[in-house]
């Protein structure tokens, strides 16, 4: 990432130098008109030295971290050096004054957005001024407007620490809750388009299709915010829209600063939307939300004022690609609040409606197909009904088996076909590609790598893999956590990597695919890997295992999922508080998924998440215990068998153990645990089902296996919220309700019972 930014910077810098006389700075109104200056110094090498110092300042500015202090000190040193050298050569007074001004700014404290805005106006001015001074030309006009814009009215020349955040009233009086929700839902979609688009632009800044998509997204945003009377948001959207409009029309190349600004703007919207939903749900109503709106607006102004022009090659390329020239139906008119776009319209309709056929094809990142927004409850209702239809249909088919009527059999076959299709279609309606969730990670990796000073590439594969919308929503947080972990603990610093003979840039690969009725999401990094011995030592230190415990490598890796375990030797902001991975595993298991870990010390770690395709249906093993039938999710079943008489041993006071391929696993008599009179007491006559939850296993003793079946999961409802043994219920083939066992709860239950018994 850093090299790319460097390249972009140098390119734009050179162009800027080449175009001294038509820069936007010269065009800005001059508060301090400067008089022509005679050359005070004809020594070119000295000027070159000043220029190189200034260029280094510019470089520092390009990479300055608003939060960190290291770069600031380097910048301060450079500016001090530059100031010394300049004052040693009797400069024209304005140059001297500008230099003193810069020294004052840098001494004032951390480089915030406002400071950055000032410096990014100051630096090109200095470059021009030095050239003008060298050649004896008229000094350029001081870009007072930009500098002033960066300092709010009435502010002393000493810059304050940072621009105050603006407190936004999230839900102004009279806000229609329904409309607001729609606004937020749409905002989320638009933000995804924006974020993805902007990150594409970072690598290919002149991609006209992407530019148009991002521009349109902000435009729609502005319209929606206007319709919701969110004036401040509308203003931010307007500013960002102008910035993108300039880029779209080939007037400027989106450099790193511009992209950061756009992303900061997008963050404002996303924070706003999240807070609005939070308050709409009745939480903290009326709480004001501080948003960095002034800072973002200032930095848009600064970016627009800084004389960046696309290199000639890019300028030529832009019109050649065509679409940019045809899109801007509104390019000529200044972007105005567009209240004509109602908040209720979808992105698809507003984009299509206002831009008609001249709209270039959207990138695959944004949904292009016509769509209808449907309340998920309606969808769930439909899925329920279809499930019932399937059961009713099979009951009718069962009843007609006795009939010899061939015509009836044919009709029933036809009905069966339609029912299955209907079921498939109903299920697929909740399925969406995982693309959105994956693409959010691009931004995460970019920001995390930047923060950690690492160089990390994210490779995505299988983004088109579809799974249930709810699963996608819920998988987001665990993924974020795992990716942060991989970036923070997995991937080494560039130097360390080089020393280990690896490429300096680390790679995180995120892929999704279908496998045997599950969606598999695999996260693999090529970092330092996990060291089983270290993990074991840590687990002993934390008291998670006893000192004499024998662990296989995989069991050792599994320790990172144990509560209170953190492998980080230092605690960072990002991860390492040890609350992470156990929550990740719990969340995944709550979604009836599971996560496995594998690692090769020195060459990386991989996490494999298995998720059900949908939360509405699971594949279950139907088992019979006495009169009752239970459903065990196949995901938690490892194997099932009828134990031989020497497989079961009884340990005094510790209950029964079953020898499963040399490993002793506690036996759980399901009937006893669930208060059902089991038909079979003798384990050798029953069936043992080995279930797994986390890294613990239990052998469930059941009477019989009745088969494997896909069942529609139903919630047990409020009456049963306090029970933890069953994950839900399902209607079985004969119309009875079967309860779905939760392996995690069974393990916990039996552990407690064993402890009390012991």
């Amino acid at each position, binding site marked *: 990432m850093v090299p790319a930014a460097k390249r972009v910077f140098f390119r734009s810098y050179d162009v800027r130098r080449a175009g001294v006389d038509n820069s936007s700075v010269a065009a800005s109104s001059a508060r301090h008109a400067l008089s022509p200056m005679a050359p005070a110094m004809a020594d070119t090498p000295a000027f070159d030295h000043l220029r190189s110092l200034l260029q280094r300042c510019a470089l520092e500015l390009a990479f300055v971290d608003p939060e960190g202090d290291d770069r600031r000190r380097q910048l301060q040193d450079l500016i001090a050096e530059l100031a010394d050298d300049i004052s040693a050569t009797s400069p024209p007074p304005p140059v001297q004054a500008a230099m003193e001004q810069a020294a004052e700014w840098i001494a004032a404290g951390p480089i915030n957005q406002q400071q950055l805005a000032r410096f990014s106006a100051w630096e090109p001015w200095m470059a021009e001024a030095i050239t003008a001074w060298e050649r004896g030309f008229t000094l350029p006009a001081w870009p007072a407007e930009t500098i002033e814009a960066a300092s709010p009215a009435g502010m002393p020349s000493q810059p304050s620490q940072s621009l105050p955040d603006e407190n936004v009233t999230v839900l102004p009086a009279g806000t229609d809750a329904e409309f607001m929700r729609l606004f937020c839902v749409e905002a989320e979609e638009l933000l995804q388009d924006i974020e993805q688009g902007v990150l594409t632009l970072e690598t290919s800044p002149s991609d006209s299709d992407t530019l148009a998509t991002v521009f349109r997204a902000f435009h729609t945003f502005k319209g929606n915010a206007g319709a919701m009377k969110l004036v401040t948001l509308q203003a931010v959207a307007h500013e960002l829209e102008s910035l993108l409009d300039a880029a779209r029309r080939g007037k400027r190349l989106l450099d790193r600063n511009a992209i950061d600004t756009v992303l900061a703007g997008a963050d404002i919207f996303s924070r706003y939307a999240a807070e609005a939903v939070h308050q709409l749900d009745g939480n903290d109503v009326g709480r004001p939300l501080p948003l960095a709106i002034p800072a973002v607006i200032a930095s848009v102004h600064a970016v627009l004022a800084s004389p960046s022009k696309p290199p000639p090659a890019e300028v030529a390329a832009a019109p050649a690609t065509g679409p940019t020239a045809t899109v801007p139906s509104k390019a000529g008119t200044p972007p105005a609040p567009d209240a004509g776009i109602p908040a209720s319209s979808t992105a698809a309709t507003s984009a299509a409606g206002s831009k008609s056929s001249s709209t270039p094809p959207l990138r695959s990142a944004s949904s292009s197909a016509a769509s209808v927004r449907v309340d998920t409850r309606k969808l769930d209702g439909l899925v*329920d*009904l279809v*499930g*019932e239809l399937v*059961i009713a249909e099979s009951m009718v088919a069962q009843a007609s088996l006795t009939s010899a009527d061939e015509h009836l059999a044919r009709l029933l076959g036809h009905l069966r076909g339609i029912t299955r299709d209907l079921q498939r279609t109903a299920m697929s309606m909740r399925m969406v590609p995982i693309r959105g969730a994956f693409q959010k990670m691009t931004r995460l990796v970019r920001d995390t790598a930047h923060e950690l000073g690492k160089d990390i590439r994210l490779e995505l594969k299988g983004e088109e893999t579809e799974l249930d919308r709810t699963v996608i929503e819920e998988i987001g947080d665990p993924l974020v956590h795992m990716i942060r972990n991989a970036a923070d603990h997995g991937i080494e610093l560039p130097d360390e990597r080089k020393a280990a003979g690896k490429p300096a840039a680390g790679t995180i690969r995120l892929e999704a695919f279908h496998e045997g009725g599950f969606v598999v999401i695999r996260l693999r990094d090529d970092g330092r890997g996990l060291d089983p011995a270290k993990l074991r030592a840590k687990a002993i230190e934390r008291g998670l295992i006893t000192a004499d415990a024998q662990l296989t490598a995989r069991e050792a890796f599994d320790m990172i999922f144990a509560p209170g375990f953190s492998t980080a030797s230092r605690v960072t902001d990002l991860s390492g508080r040890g609350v992470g991975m156990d929550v990740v595993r719990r969340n995944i298991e709550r979604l009836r998924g599971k996560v496995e870990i594998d690692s090769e010390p020195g060459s990386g770690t991989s996490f494999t998440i298995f998720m059900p395709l949908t939360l509405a249906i699971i594949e279950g093993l139907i088992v019979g215990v006495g009169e*009752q039938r239970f459903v065990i999710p196949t995901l938690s079943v490892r194997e099932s068998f009828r134990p031989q008489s020497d497989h079961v041993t*009884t340990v005094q006071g510790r*209950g*029964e153990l079953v020898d499963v391929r040399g490993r002793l696993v506690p036996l759980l*008599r399901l009937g*006893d*645990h*669930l*208060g*059902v009179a089991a038909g079979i*007491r*003798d*384990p050798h006559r029953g069936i043992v089902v080995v279930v797994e939850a986390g890294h613990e296993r239990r052998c469930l003793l059941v009477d019989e296996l009745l088969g494997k079946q896909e069942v529609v999961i*139903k*919630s*047990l*409802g*409020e*009456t*049963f*919220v*306090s*029970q*933890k*043994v*069953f994950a839900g*219920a399902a*209607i079985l083939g004969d*119309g*009875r*309700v*079967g*309860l779905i066992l939760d392996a995690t*709860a069974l393990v916990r*239950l039996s552990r407690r*019972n*064993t402890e*009390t*018994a012991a």
Partner: protein
Amino acid sequence: MSPTETTAKASGPDAGKYLVFTLSGERYAVPVLAVREIIRLCPITPVATMPPHIRGVINLRGRVIPLVDLRVRFSLSAPPDHDRTCIIVTQVASAAGGKRPYAVVVDGVEEVATYDQSDLLPTPDFGGAVDVRFITGMAHAAEQVITLIDLDTVAAHDPLDALEPSITAPDTSEDA
């Protein structure tokens, strides 16, 4: 009973139509507006770890609905199910807002009766002998006294009354 629990019902029962049913020979009623349908006893799936008055769940046209035995809930002697035993499917207030289905087992449905305000009495003072949490009041009509039940409160107490999953440890000695 604590005063707060009784004052909650200070408004007393509303006049209107009630569905009258019997529980162990006593007559009870619920507002007919809360009743969705009356069905015959159907296969019940018991749910372990729940208190005894929760019989389990039933399948009502694809919906999984809790089934509560009001006889056990009110500590009445519960005769075994017989041919008049039936299930009343009702709607009760959901904690999440709105309504949710809730089914109760009763010994038999009697009639739909209309009670005027003059027929209705507030919950009498039973002197602490009777659990009045679930009673909105009494109806006195046609020489009979009928207890009016507040099913919303009955349903709301189910999760609170549910036992901790404290199933006794399996006795392994017999197999040893």
